[in-house]
């Protein structure tokens, strides 16, 4: 399984982007990540989740999960983030740790 993650916008306007080879992660982390994807019902989410009033300086996210047999991309505004998806986004944006 692969995850492609991008975050743009925000006050700083600094783009965050990474690809994660989930299969290469230690088993415990892999299982946690798979639970987060499951809890988000990621493959059932709409392609685009846009805010009607996005305000200003908010983040936009693009997340692609490719599990081999299934591949899905979600574009979501921070202002319209489903709470079920937020834990996965928090995981993907948590401070960088060197592998």
């Amino acid at each position, binding site marked *: 399984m692969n995850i492609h993650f991008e975050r743009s916008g925000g*006050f700083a306007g600094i783009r965050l982007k990474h690809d994660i080879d989930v299969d290469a992660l230690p088993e415990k*982390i892999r299982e946690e990540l798979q639970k987060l994807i499951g*809890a988000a019902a990621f493959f059932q989410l709409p392609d685009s989740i846009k805010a009607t009033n996005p305000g200003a300086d908010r983040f*936009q996210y693009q997340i692609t999960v490719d599990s081999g047999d299934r591949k899905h991309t979600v574009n979501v505004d921070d202002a*319209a983030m*489903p709470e079920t998806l937020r834990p996965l986004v*928090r995981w993907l944006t948590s401070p960088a740790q060197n592998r």
Partner: protein
Amino acid sequence: MNRRFHVCWVIPPHILTKLAESDEHREHALRTLALGERFRGRREVRSAFEGLAGVPAGEKRRTIYNAQNQTTLPGTLVRGEGDPATSDIAVTEAYDFSGATYDFYMNAYNRNSIDGRGMRLDSSVHYDQSFDNAFWDGRQMVYGDGDQTIFDRFTKCLDVVGHELTHGVTAATAALEYHGQSGALNESMSDVFGSLVRQMQSGQTADQADWLIGAGLLLPVIHGVAIRSMKAPGTAYNDPQLGRDPQPATMSDYLNTSDDNGGVHINSGIPNHAFYLAAIAIGGNAWEKAGKIWYVTLTQRLVPNADFQAAADATFDVAGNLYGPNSPEQKAIADAWNGVGLTPAGSTGSQVTVPSGDASGDTAVASTKKSKTTKPSKKQKKKKKRP
């Protein structure tokens, strides 16, 4: 619009090995959409404050909430106007800096709060977990704690607070659409007045100011002095983790991108730099003349889809109205826009003289796109939105 996707400053992959917080998050996993939660919560809180609606004009009314590392807004009320300080520095900063911004708008432009009618200034701190952002959600200011690896807390800088509050002022006036050039103008207005709040607070003239936005927000380990520089866009940071500050200073480096609502935080470097050049050329306190010209332009002249050319045209025209045609101030505005590659309509530097406030028709202004319209000029009666 712009389909090309140029990114010359990609952050090296943030590779993650720790999953620290998933257990506590899972309990929230079955919640419904955040937006619905937020609006429900807000209505309840707002109704509790309806009694404050009659506070006399010209008084600050600040309320600070603690979002307690969740994403439901506004959170728990922790400090109202006149309440004593708490031990929470983020609360203190949000309170003090939103107050300084209120005072700035009142003292510099006689503006009573965001809407000009004494609107209460609501701020929520400790939004989400390790959240690397501050934003305006359409009604209030919201601040994250920062990840404490790259970013410090977002209440730390007065100009960041001034930036967020100015998004409210823009929403209440020109309502600049948050994409493309109008979005970059929206961003630039927030940087301009955010910087001016700090300059007034510090008692700095244009040549004494650092013209940085978010100085101190990046932790010392990061190679950078700030998030943006109005004096020298593109030089605020250059770091292996963050990449390089991507801001252009002139139209020749305008970045076409679909990212960030069309690069609103990137191309804002161009009008930011124009303001800097104007303020330096005029001299003295930047909020007095250059700031006044920009303020009148924002609140009375720009329309929601205004582009950079419209801002150049309007500021030039406003400078003529305020300080006289061919005044040093008006010439400074023309020179400033020329310095970033734009020629205000009606200025001597342009190829064709366009009647003020009317850039329609087939006039071609050298090297620039045709302007989006500005509001009809001069003595037109000020028309404000009454929500």
